[in-house]
């Protein structure tokens, strides 16, 4: 239980930024796992590129293999650092791996990172990669409140998650013809006040994924959620609840939570 709680806290890490105009917004931070995958992909790309160049160089220097080795050794070394630094510097904080995993490096003030920051954080890899498999970086990320490896700490950068978001559409359960919970405005108000955003989105998610869940799992999840709401948050009268399925209960609750404001509409 503690385990899941801590992972959740970790993946849900976010940075709150206050703009000069007094607007607060949050940026979701990237977890260590997705950063690791992105890095592995980048490493594969670099290795592929270097090997491709290597073949070319061997062919060009066929008469002078020693110089070929020299060019390849130095090119490999330079590309290892320059790949990340140049791509992040000129491609708004993204390498190919980061782009595929929806990650972006930014300045810790929320602005795009600058070229020298990209170089510093990539050169610092020699320390972050110690003693093997980026162990130092991993420890740094896990111990930092904003998931920075040492290179990020020195360069003043962060890695944020940027999954594409669309404007949320109209949800079917907010357009129900009749919501019986509206008959009890006091209890409905209590539900709105007491429900945390996490709980609300949990209910919303459970409803949205209705068709992805196995029937048994769905029944159990809906039953537990409805029971929890009914006993802990907003006890609607028993005679009403008895007539509703758990799913209908949640649809009604969700309607209350997400904007159904017009008590007279259903009746009229």
């Amino acid at each position, binding site marked *: 239980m503690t385990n899941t709680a801590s992972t959740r806290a970790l993946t849900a890490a976010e940075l709150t*930024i206050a*703009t000069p*105009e007094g*607007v*607060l*917004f*949050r*940026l979701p931070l990237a977890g260590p796992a997705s950063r690791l995958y992105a890095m592995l992909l980048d490493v594969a790309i670099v290795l592929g590129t270097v090997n491709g160049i290597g073949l070319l160089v061997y062919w060009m220097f066929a008469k*002078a*293999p*020693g*110089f070929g*080795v*020299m*060019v*390849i*050794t*130095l090119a490999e*070394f330079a590309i290892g650092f320059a790949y990340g630094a140049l791509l992040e510097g000129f491609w*708004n904080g993204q390498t190919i791996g980061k782009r595929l995993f929806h990650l972006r490096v*930014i300045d810790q003030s*929320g*602005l*795009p990172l*600058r*070229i*020298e*920051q990209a*170089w*510093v954080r990539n*050169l*610092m890899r*020699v*320390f972050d990669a110690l003693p093997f498999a980026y162990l130092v970086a991993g420890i740094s990320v896990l111990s930092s409140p904003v998931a920075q490896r*040492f290179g990020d*700490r*020195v*360069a*003043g950068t962060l890695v944020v998650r*940027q999954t594409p*978001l*669309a*404007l*949320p559409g*109209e949800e079917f359960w*907010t357009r129900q013809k009749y919501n019986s919970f509206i008959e009890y405005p006091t209890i409905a*108000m209590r539900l*709105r006040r007491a*429900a945390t*955003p996490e709980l*609300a*989105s949990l209910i*919303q998610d459970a409803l949205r994924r209705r068709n992805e869940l196995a029937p048994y799992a769905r029944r159990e999840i809906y039953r537990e959620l409805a029971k929890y709401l009914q006993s802990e948050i907003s006890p609607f009268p028993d005679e009403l609840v008895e007539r509703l399925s758990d799913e209908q209960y949640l649809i009604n609750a969700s309607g209350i*939570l*997400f*904007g159904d*404001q017009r008590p007279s509409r259903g009746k009229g």
Partner: protein
Amino acid sequence: MILDLERFQAQAGPRWRDLESLLAVLESRPDRRVNPPEAEQLQELYAQVAADLNRVTHGALAPELRQYLERLVARAYAELYYAPPMRSEVWQPRRWLRIFTAFPETFRRNARYFALAVLITLLGCAFGGLAVRYDPASVDVLLPADYLRNPGQRVHEEEQGQGRRLDSAQTEAAFSAQLIRHNIQVALLAAALGVTFGIGTALLLFENGVLLGAVAVHYTQQGFGLFLTAWLLPHGAFEIPSILIAGQAGFYLARQLLRRREDRNSRQSMREWLVLVAGLAMMLVWAGLMEAFFSQHHAPVLPYDFKVAVAAAELVLLAIYLLMIGRREISAESRSFVPSENR
């Protein structure tokens, strides 16, 4: 729960989509330039959407809508407040060539960190040298296996050309690349270890000094002082100073990290660090070439006096470069070589 989400979304939705399409246009522009009418529109939409975000945050329970608006505001904020570097600046070769003067200038500006690196290395040298001098058995502990061989035998082998496989320019070239790569890696590590508040940098420099002192005393004791000087100094003239400069960069970084947050000028300090690292990397390229192509040739081919003279000339040139090139007066406002502008 004051906000009627449905009506709100219907009302404000168009301007969200306007901002979204404006941002898409701006972000796809490689130079990230904004013309005045766009800037005005961006400013206006940003203010409106930020206000919408505030209303959703405080007046409704709509985590998804809030996330969507936050993302939009974050993107607009970044576009509005970030002044990208001028494209012409980034690609001007003359600005990049300024590294050659910026390096000695930066070196002189931070000379006290260099002095600290020299001091620690000298302490290491003294430790290693004295240990070998007064306790010859410590050679086994202090020196890696490569140097453990009897200096007399090693010198003989080197002079006969047995100890090396470097029989052609080809292998020398490959060898030089490995040396350059290895040396830059070690130097970069010394510079990066500044993040351990300089402790790691100091340990690395000290260890390097111990090795240097022990080898020097060990060979000199047995009467191979000239051979050693001629063997190590032609590349050491650049290699040892560049490791010291790496230490300088490490201590400089440590000092910056120890400053209070509000006293830091992180942009300036990052540039100084990068200039030092770039400079020492250039020095190590030269050192690697010298080590592979020049240092490994011994007495019958190259007289030792000639090798030592070359090394001395290198040292003098390096000293002149580091101490004389670039602006004489040390001003804090001096421009740095990395061209980029912000705010």
